[in-house]
């Protein structure tokens, strides 16, 4: 039986968890170790941690914190943020992380993708693509945590990443991030149609309603979300939640 992955994405800065809106205004969510513990107890499919400060600060990933986090996780864990070379990838994988998520570094040096895929296997390399639409609605790839715009078209870049050996593509809408108004459907569709490696939709999900649409109508392999797993109710109170197996099966299958 087939099951699509529902992946909470948590943003890490120094040693705290945060959540953003449109990649801005980070709001403190709490201690990452306890959060992972709770997600683990909830038996989530997979978790992704992105260090949002790393590339900007030109920092190396905090391996000690990552090790603490990884040892709490009995499901697949992806980590990204400021990953620049194969040495870093090796260190991160050794600490107990399944997959590394590369964003800026892959755009600046695409060979990194093929080098790391060769060394560690495609399935450990996830290329994350952050997309913002310009005034005319044209989607453009952004790097450095959304701060820098490139001329790249996300579909072309996703196809190229696949060609170079990426195992998975995480397609993230900056405009929709944290807004809880649904994914950028056109974006998801265009990328999903263009590649034949797993595509993970991200940015804007409200919950099961959007997961169901992404999976059923747009045939993505997996869906990712942040806000809907950490905020509850009209005051956006911080509370970790995850749909039950029953809720997911009813909505998705």
């Amino acid at each position, binding site marked *: 039986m087939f099951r699509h992955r529902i992946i909470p994405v948590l943003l890490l800065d120094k*040693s*705290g968890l945060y959540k953003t809106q449109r990649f801005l205004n980070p709001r*403190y*969510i*709490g*201690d990452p*170790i*306890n959060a992972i*513990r*709770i997600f683990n*107890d*909830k038996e989530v499919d997979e978790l992704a941690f992105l260090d949002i400060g790393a590339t900007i600060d030109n920092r190396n990933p905090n391996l000690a914190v990552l090790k*603490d986090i990884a040892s709490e996780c009995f499901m697949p864990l992806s980590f990204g943020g400021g990953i620049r070379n194969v040495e870093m990838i090796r260190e991160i994988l050794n600490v107990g992380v399944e997959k590394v998520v590369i964003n800026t570094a892959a755009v600046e040096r695409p060979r990194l993708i093929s080098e790391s895929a060769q060394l560690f296997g495609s399935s450990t390399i996830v290329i994350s693509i952050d997309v913002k639409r310009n005034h005319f609605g044209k989607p453009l790839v952004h790097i450095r945590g959304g701060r820098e715009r490139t001329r790249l078209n996300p579909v072309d870049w996703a196809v190229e990443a696949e060609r170079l050996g990426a195992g998975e593509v995480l397609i993230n809408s900056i405009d929709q991030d944290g807004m809880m108004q649904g994914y950028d459907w056109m974006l998801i569709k265009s990328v999903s149609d263009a590649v034949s490696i797993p595509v993970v939709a991200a940015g804007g999900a409200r919950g099961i309603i959007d997961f169901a649409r992404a999976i059923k109508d747009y045939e993505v392999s997996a869906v990712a979300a942040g806000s809907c797993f950490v905020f*509850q*109710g*009209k*005051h956006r*109170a*911080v*509370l*970790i*939640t995850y749909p039950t197996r029953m809720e997911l099966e009813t909505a998705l299958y």
Partner: protein
Amino acid sequence: MIDILDFNKDRNDVLRRILPKIPYQICTRTVMDTTDPAITFNDEGVCNHVLDYEDYLKNSKPDPERAKHLMKQMVSNLRKDGKGKDYDCIIGLSGGVDSSYLTWYVSQKLGLRPLVVHVDAGWNNEIAVSNIQNIVQKLKLDLHTVVLDWEVVKDLQVAYFKSSLANIDIPQDHAFISCLYNEARKYKIRNIINGNNMSTESILPSTWGYDASDSIQIKSIHKKFGSKPLTDYPLMNPYQRFIFYPRILKLRTYSPLEWIDYRKQEAKDFMIRELGWKDYGGKHYESKFTRFFQAHYLPEKFGYDKRKAHLSSLIVSGQMTREEALLELKLPLYLESELNEDRDYFIKKLGITHKEYESIMHLPVRSYSEFPNSEDLINKARKLYRPFKLLINLIKK
């Protein structure tokens, strides 16, 4: 009042140091025993806690008529204060049995409109989180969470751990209270409802605990053992505690579980059935920290098993027999595998090494009175007050 405090403090210290080996004795009615160094027994072997409870029943506990009246009064006060506003009261919800049942009772039975507040100190158990979710979603209540800065809490918890005091849960407990009051102030809600109840909490020896609202002690422990600034920690100072909140903001607290026939097991069964509530085992085990604290730290380093207090409370309120309590006490506090896991987690979270942990656990036990605390302040005030009063009298003459 001071005299009694002095007496207790001296007596506890004396008992702990000069008479370390008190012959073991257990209460004939409850399961409280001489691990409470201040315990006394009457001729029938019944301990002072039982006598205090019976005194409460006779003199303080409201009879059903009066209880009903107090409840009605509370409801009408709250409705009045809440008129035209979004909420008429504020409730702290931890996901534990008391606060969960209270939330249900206040919103469904009494029809009030609470703002539900949860304070996240970084140790939430998944079951507690799930309980909170189910309660606010099923009862359609508004939730507000206060997430404490974990680095600050961690630093303070490590400081307390290093101090070798019994009450290393104070950083959490103090924050729970101060944040709730702060939220009340923020949302301009005057009425705070808490789940305090004599039905399950009547017995708790003062020797096993210390006042979590004492900010002076917190500051002194932090000064001595802490390393990060305390600015982001929600400290409630004596001025706020005694004057600002109660007298200027006129915040009122109510404990309605006191006025109903609150039975813990029935409350649990009800919530499991109707609200998808899950039981997490022992009292206050909704926090991973508290579980380790009560089931290992206290018994191992101080010799207190808080279960004795919790179970004794249930015995005196007729919810459990002494035999049942004795049987339960025979069960280990921890299975070895659970203990190892929780201890590893405790060590990991606090960012200390196994070695540091062991050496701190082996440090000699210390008492709250060894560090500056609010009692000192009160004593100093009294000392000043006496000559001051004399002066006034002289002037009057």
